């Protein structure tokens, strides 16, 4: 049954040419060098400091660490972080896949 479900999902995304992470409601993180991080579909900001930004994703937290982090903009759809990015981590919720 699970295989059938997965196959249907694949058919749908492939047929409509929609990125699968959008249908799944997962965050999409695009990193340009170590200066810019573009995060789409995050569920909110958990912590925002000069050196770290913790965002809430569907299945866990996205932790962006660096120096002098500045949010270029923040909207319901996406946000852009600028600064010297050191690490981008995913902290999965227990039981998440």
């Amino acid at each position, binding site marked *: 049954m699970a295989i059938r479900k997965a196959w249907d999902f694949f058919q749908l995304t492939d047929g409509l040419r929609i990125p699968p992470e959008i249908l799944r409601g997962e965050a999409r993180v695009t990193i340009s060098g170590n200066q810019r991080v573009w995060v789409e579909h995050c569920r*909110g900001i958990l*912590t*925002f400091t000069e050196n770290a930004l913790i965002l809430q994703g569907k299945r866990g937290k996205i932790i962006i660490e660096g120096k002098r982090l500045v*949010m*270029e*903009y*923040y909207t*319901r759809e996406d946000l852009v972080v600028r600064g010297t990015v050191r690490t981008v981590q995913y902290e999965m919720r227990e039981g998440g896949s």
Partner: protein
Amino acid sequence: MGKAVRLIFGYLCITIRGEHVERFLNLCAGRRIHLWNLQRSGEICRAMISLREFYKLHTIVRKTKVRVAIQKRMGLPFFVRKMRTRWVFFACAALAPCFCLMTSRFLWSVEVTGCGKVTEDQCLEFLLGHEIMIGMRLSDIDETEMEKLLRKEFEDIIWTNVQLVGTTLRIDLKERDVPKEKENAPDRRGMDLLSPFDGTIVSMTLRSGVPKVKQGDYVKKEQLLVSGSLPIYQEDGTIKEVLPVTPDATIWIERERWIEDAFSVTFVQKEPTGREKNMTSLILGGRELNKKKGKWFYDEVKVETTKMPKLFQILRIPVMIRKTSHLEAFPILEKYEEEELFAVAEEKILRFLATLEEKGVQIIEKDVKISIEGDCCQIYGSILVRERADLFRKTEDEFDGIKQVITTRK
């Protein structure tokens, strides 16, 4: 584009402080309140927000219990509010384009290039004669017609180009290199060539007419040199008739001219003291505005420059800017040194000789003396010159009665 829109509608730089700053940001994003340039420093979070969206923050602030403070206001609404007291400036700024638009429909300057025999003044006079003057409408000027009229008026002009560049009427002229033979040369038929002064004839070339003198003769003023009446004799020696001819001869008469001049050995020199005052004034419609009356210094030297400003390189406007520098000077009575005196005197003599040469006089010899007597320097002496006889006049001669007969017979 986005930045321009933000500037037009105005935006704010705000600081957010409190325990639930992140919640505040999330709620803003959830309610589609756009925040940008978010920066965290310690407990304070700085962000930019548009003026319109700032008013929507009220409920979010109450809910999250953060404190929002405006740090900086930017954009047009704030600028206008700030500049409300300077309404004159804004009125002028609004009127300036109207003024430019209005003045660009009129003629404000005339430029003439390529002048030679036809002078710029003659051209301007011609324009005035055809009612083309500063301040008239550009639409009333017909360039093609004016080109035709210019060529018709001045025979020496072989090509013209009249064009309007902005508010300037530019006239380019091209004159003929070879002078046109004068059609309206004075008719000297029957006239006589006389001596304009006393002197000795040193050279004589006769082309037409009856010579009455010869080379080497001493002639008096108004003495007949070449007659314009040619008698035709009969076989018995009596005059049959008298034909009027044009006397044409090149006769050089040598004579002495006297030169006498005197000038003072002292002169007033203005010594600048170094003090200077500058003034800028506007000239509007021939009237000088902001002109300070009265003398600024006891004695002064004035340096003036007048300029007509141009808008966008081509549009001249009917305003002129005059810059005047008043330099304080102290008058000192100076005395020429002997060498200087001779130099000044020499210059005066040379200037006199140059004016003679300009008139076509040949200078053969000069014997001029310079002497200093007391406070006066005197120049005196004689110059031997050769001048051309060019006095034409109708004179009464022995054939007058016969001429009358011929004229009535015709």
